[in-house]
């Protein structure tokens, strides 16, 4: 795999993760626990689609450089099958109840912010630019998900139980955020990509105090899903992604070549 191919893969990981998570958040609109939250979740979703579009568009340009022709953001989002998607397994997990959604967000947002801060220093100017803008948005996402984890963890007995259950259920999907493979290594060495391994400690350092304040326990399991090179970033997904993509891609698949 040459540098451009690795970069293409890496950008898909960033873009697909954002787009899939935005797809999940979009499902809440009109069904949230309170009107203000419908609006807030939509904002997070909109930020993520915006970022996802930029990453995918850049991926398409990189593809054009290496292969002579590159796909558009929509061709990438709507015409690849699940095994070609490179999002984290964590973000394709179903919304579940509000606690599950917030746990997923909480785990992801902190890691996302750390990763973007590192990417803002990327030697690849386009990446640095996208990341710098995204940092502002994701800083807010981090505050929001922490706010909710605290209120639900230290709220009622019911909310506490739901929140702990959600944290426990999603914990095994967090490991994937901090492992690297050959794709990453080539780019890390060139100062292009963030080194996910170095993010784990700062992530734990950020997550622990929030969970303490929320009177919640940090899960202790060691086994992580998607390990051993068989994670979402390598195209190995859960059963959930197929259904998500079927819904998302339906129109483009049914009317090939149409402009919308």
């Amino acid at each position, binding site marked *: 795999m040459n540098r451009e191919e690795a970069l293409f893969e890496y950008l898909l990981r960033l873009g697909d993760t954002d787009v899939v998570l935005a797809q999940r958040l979009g499902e809440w609109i009109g069904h949230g626990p*309170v*009107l*203000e939250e419908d*609006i*807030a979740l939509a*904002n997070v979703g*909109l930020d993520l689609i*915006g970022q996802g579009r930029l990453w995918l568009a850049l991926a398409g340009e990189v593809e054009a450089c290496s292969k002579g022709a590159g796909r558009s953001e929509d061709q990438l989002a709507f015409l690849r099958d699940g095994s070609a998607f490179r999002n984290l397994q964590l973000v394709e997990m179903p919304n579940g109840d509000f606690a599950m959604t917030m746990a997923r967000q909480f785990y992801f947002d902190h890691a996302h912010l750390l990763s973007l801060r590192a990417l803002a220093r990327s030697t690849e100017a386009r990446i640095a630019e996208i990341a710098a803008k995204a940092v502002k948005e994701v800083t*807010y996402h981090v*505050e*929001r998900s922490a*706010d909710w984890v605290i*209120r639900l963890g230290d709220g009622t007995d019911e909310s506490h139980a739901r929140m702990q259950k959600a944290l426990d259920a999603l914990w095994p999907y967090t490991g994937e955020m901090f492992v690297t493979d050959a794709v990453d290594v080539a780019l890390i060495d060139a100062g292009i990509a963030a080194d996910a391994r170095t993010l784990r400690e700062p992530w734990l350092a950020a997550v622990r105090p929030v969970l303490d304040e929320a009177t919640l326990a940090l899960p202790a399991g060691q086994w992580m899903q998607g390990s051993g090179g068989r994670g979402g970033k390598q195209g190995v997904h859960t059963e959930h992604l197929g259904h998500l993509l079927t819904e998302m891609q339906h129109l483009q698949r049914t009317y090939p070549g149409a402009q919308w």
Partner: protein
Amino acid sequence: MSAEWPLWEIFIRSQHGLAHKHVGSLHAPDAELAVKNARDVYTRRNEGVSIWVVKSTDITASSPGDREALFEPSNSKVYRHPTFFPMPDEVKHL
């Protein structure tokens, strides 16, 4: 009925404004979420504002004053603005 969230009045000072203006109200369980919700609800088309939130019950009004709504267009999410969609000249009333 489940527990009701208190009502908060929202005051916003825009980038170009000199003072906070009352823009409306919203419900939030506490001040911190009120500020964040106000950002999401009342500044979707705006950046860099200052937000004050006050519990409605904490406001004492001297006389029925005129509270003005705030609306200032901005270019962050471009498609929100009608000018983003070029409409054919021949078609009126859009």
